[in-house]
């Protein structure tokens, strides 16, 4: 039975897809005026549940009560009309429209079939004032920061009169300052009587902002707890199903000589500059982390180093040799390995088998080849061992890579890239989309490689990851390293200031754009 003050009561909701139960008998209540977090790993069923609540999917079993009445929406529009609003992780805004235009789009106030722009702007302004959301209604979306764009999404939902607001991974795209501001807004909304469902896998944030937390694991509810009653390790254990170590094993050893030296790198597409006079160096036995909001040149930097993108200026030296604009095959020959951010496009050839992916690029080495023939015993031995060493779960090394889960695909890439103890590793978003167990594993592997003397360049949008793993950190903004920090002096808030360009470079104070 639903509690009396439940705004949303989810009762025995089950949703099956071929071969998997995405939601199994999910039941919990969201109470009036609370901030209710739903946490779970990737694949735990959070998204499916949201899609059911907002009418994108229909449940196979169970029902949903909204304000005490059965509410099975057949499409998202019905959910909006009923007063359930959702803020998606990826914004759905028209970038060359103004804030006002975006807010009223699809819910224009009719006045003899015409829109009164002044009236609309006033309404939007009133709304932002009421909820304390700072926004200029006349600015265009393309001129707003990511945090501001998210506020537009929230305004959109409020404009449509939502009483229940669902935010799907809202902090994934935000820097620490923006996250703080978002939380401020959420608290204001709560004070004004709105109910908020907050979906996340970042436990610290969840504990900070929410009143109650529902934990999902493999499609089922593990429990609903008060935020005040749990600790972070306890919550992680509920999520994963076993105790989780948050401390990575790291040996403190002084780093060696400069392994990778990047000097004054420049690159552009068309007229747009992507890398602007970018310089840094990574030493042997050191992990250098690049922190930054995505789209500030990280992808291009990794590709430029690996010989997958031509640079217009500057030099890249690996172990003393100039590798600027060398093809990938040559860069690899010098001892570089690469974990690309896009597993599907760059990392793996999905329709090919596990073993083929595992030796790709190394298949012409003497241990894998004899004359014109692949040496299958040698290949299979290497792959079988690698699969065990890196804990890749699969039915057979003859299975196609596309049949593996995301975490296992990533581990398969590790099997390939860690072969032969690389001197230098570029790891680009190496734990994106992985569950806690796999994340932990991948980070430990990077640390191990470092301990064995490899230089590691870690590029990640996850600030927590950078701070936990890297020895030194460079903050990238508009294709330029704004500032560098050692691990012990790195503070999320300080990094955040440089990440948004609010604070400018310590290295000679160069202009950012």
């Amino acid at each position, binding site marked *: 039975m639903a509690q009396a003050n439940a705004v949303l009561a989810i009762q025995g909701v089950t949703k099956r897809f*071929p071969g998997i139960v995405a939601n199994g008998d999910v039941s919990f209540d969201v109470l009036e005026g609370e901030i209710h977090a739903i946490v779970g790993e990737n694949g735990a069923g959070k998204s499916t549940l949201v899609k059911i609540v907002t009418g994108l999917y229909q449940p196979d079993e169970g029902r949903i009560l909204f304000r005490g009445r059965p509410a099975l929406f057949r499409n998202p529009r019905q959910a909006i009309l009923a007063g359930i609003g959702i803020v998606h992780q990826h914004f759905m805004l028209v970038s060359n429209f103004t804030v006002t235009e975006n807010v009223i789009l699809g819910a224009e106030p009719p006045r003899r079939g015409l829109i009164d722009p002044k009236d609309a702007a006033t309404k939007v302004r009133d709304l932002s004032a009421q909820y304390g959301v700072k926004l200029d209604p006349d600015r265009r979306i393309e001129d707003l920061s990511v945090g501001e764009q998210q506020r537009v999404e929230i305004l959109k939902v409020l404009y449509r009169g939502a009483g229940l607001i669902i935010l799907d991974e809202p902090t994934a795209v935000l820097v620490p300052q923006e996250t703080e501001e978002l939380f401020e807004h959420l608290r204001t909304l709560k004070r004004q009587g709105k109910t908020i469902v907050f979906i996340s896998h970042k436990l610290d944030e969840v504990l900070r902002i929410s009143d109650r937390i529902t934990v*999902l694991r493999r499609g089922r509810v593990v429990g609903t707890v008060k935020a005040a009653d749990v600790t972070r390790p306890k919550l992680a254990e509920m999520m994963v199903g076993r105790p989780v170590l948050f401390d990575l094993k790291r040996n403190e050893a002084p780093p060696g000589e400069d392994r990778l030296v990047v000097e004054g790198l420049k690159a552009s597409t068309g007229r747009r500059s992507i890398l602007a006079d970018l310089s840094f160096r990574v030493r042997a036995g050191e992990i250098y982390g690049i922190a930054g909001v995505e789209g500030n040149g990280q992808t291009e930097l990794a590709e430029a180093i690996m010989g997958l993108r031509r640079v217009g200026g500057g030099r890249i030296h690996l172990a003393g040799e100039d590798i600027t604009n060398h093809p990938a095959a040559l860069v690899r020959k010098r001892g570089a390995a690469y974990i690309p951010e896009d597993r599907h496009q760059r990392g793996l*050839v999905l329709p090919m088998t596990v073993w083929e992916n595992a030796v790709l*690029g190394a298949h012409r080495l003497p241990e894998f*080849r004899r004359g014109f023939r692949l040496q299958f015993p040698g290949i299979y031995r290497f792959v079988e061992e690698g699969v065990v060493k890196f804990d890749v779960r699969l039915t057979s090394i003859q299975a196609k890579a596309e*049949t593996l889960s995301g975490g296992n695909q990533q581990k398969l890439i590790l099997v390939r890239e860690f072969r032969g103890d690389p001197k230098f590793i570029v790891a680009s978003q190496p734990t994106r989309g992985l569950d806690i167990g796999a994340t932990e594993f991948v980070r430990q592997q990077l640390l191990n490689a470092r301990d064995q003397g490899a230089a590691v360049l870690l590029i990640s949008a996850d600030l927590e990851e950078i701070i936990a793993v890297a020895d030194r950190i460079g903050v990238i903004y508009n294709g330029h390293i704004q500032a560098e920090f050692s691990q012990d002096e790195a503070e999320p808030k300080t990094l955040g200031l440089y990440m948004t360009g609010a604070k400018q470079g310590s290295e000679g104070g160069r202009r950012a754009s």
Partner: protein
Amino acid sequence: MNAQLPRSKAAKRLALLEKFSPVLAVLVAMAVASIALIIIGKNPLVVYGTMFYFAFGRMDSIANILYKATPLIFAGIACAVGFRVGLFNIGVEGQYLIGVLCAASVGFAVKGLPVYIHLPLAILAGAAGGALWALVPIWLKLKRGVHEVITTIMLNHTAFLFVQYLVAGPLMDKTGGMGPGGVDLRVRTPALLPTARMPDLHGALGKIGIDFPAGSVNWFLILALLAAVGLWYLLWKTPFGLELRAVGHNPKAAETAGIRSNTVIFRTFLLSGAVAGLAGLSDLLGYFGYLDIDFPRNFGFTGIAVALVGRNSAVGIVLASVLFGFLSRGGMGIQIIERVPMETYYILQGLIILCIVMASEVIRRYARAQQKKEEASPNA
């Protein structure tokens, strides 16, 4: 968490369905063609029966099917190699004509060599001619980004007209001594020397009790089968085959893993052209012994269909080539015996290609939809 992923029954069924979709498609095509037959007042069962009986009822007819299949195996392999690396080599047509031209030139112009040098030399000349004709489009593609479909189509016309010009002009045999009576002036090259001719299989097969008539199947059939084995070996057993397939599936990932995609593409395309250059040699060196203005055409285009029907696999290409050989032979049969117009054969051939393309696309989409359904669920 990622539990072990045993292949579901549905996935296995899907794979099986995919494998046998060409067979299914052929049956559907025959059913649809029946409509055409009924419209012209023929009983489809009788027509198909005659087709089979005529094609397989006699030894010389079977030999004819294999003879017709021989060039198609080469052409199919040439196309398949291109498809495997992600390129559409429509130029097999032109490449084999140039191959024939080169082989013929070596055959009649180079004199005084023993057969074990002259014949291989002529075959090599054919392969070299095909590769040469493939060089231009692939060079333009890699250096200038010109799409290979455009250039190869253009070069098909160029090759055809070039060969016509040479055969009717500079290379024409003006001695006139070839036909009976010595006055016959056909538009053709001089006759190839006997040392450049490919012996037929009449003798060799006769020893093991197979009575194929003389002047039909020649040793190029064996070469074609060896080429098919070679294709299989190349694709699945060699480093280059691994690279070729990786580039074909995902050039970006291959490049990232340290493979030089452009080099692989370049070499593969030349290989495709070289194999294409062999497609016309069975007719040239094994049958006609000269290159004339009516030399058989369209092997290249049929080769595309063969590769498609055979799903770019060695076994599939051989089977598809025999299928097309059978259709053409059986088509002759129903024309003579049942008085069904030859066009019906073209209808059937066209329908088979259409059905196979559709079947593979339908199954591909179905598989993708199934996959999406499974992927949609674990998203969180």
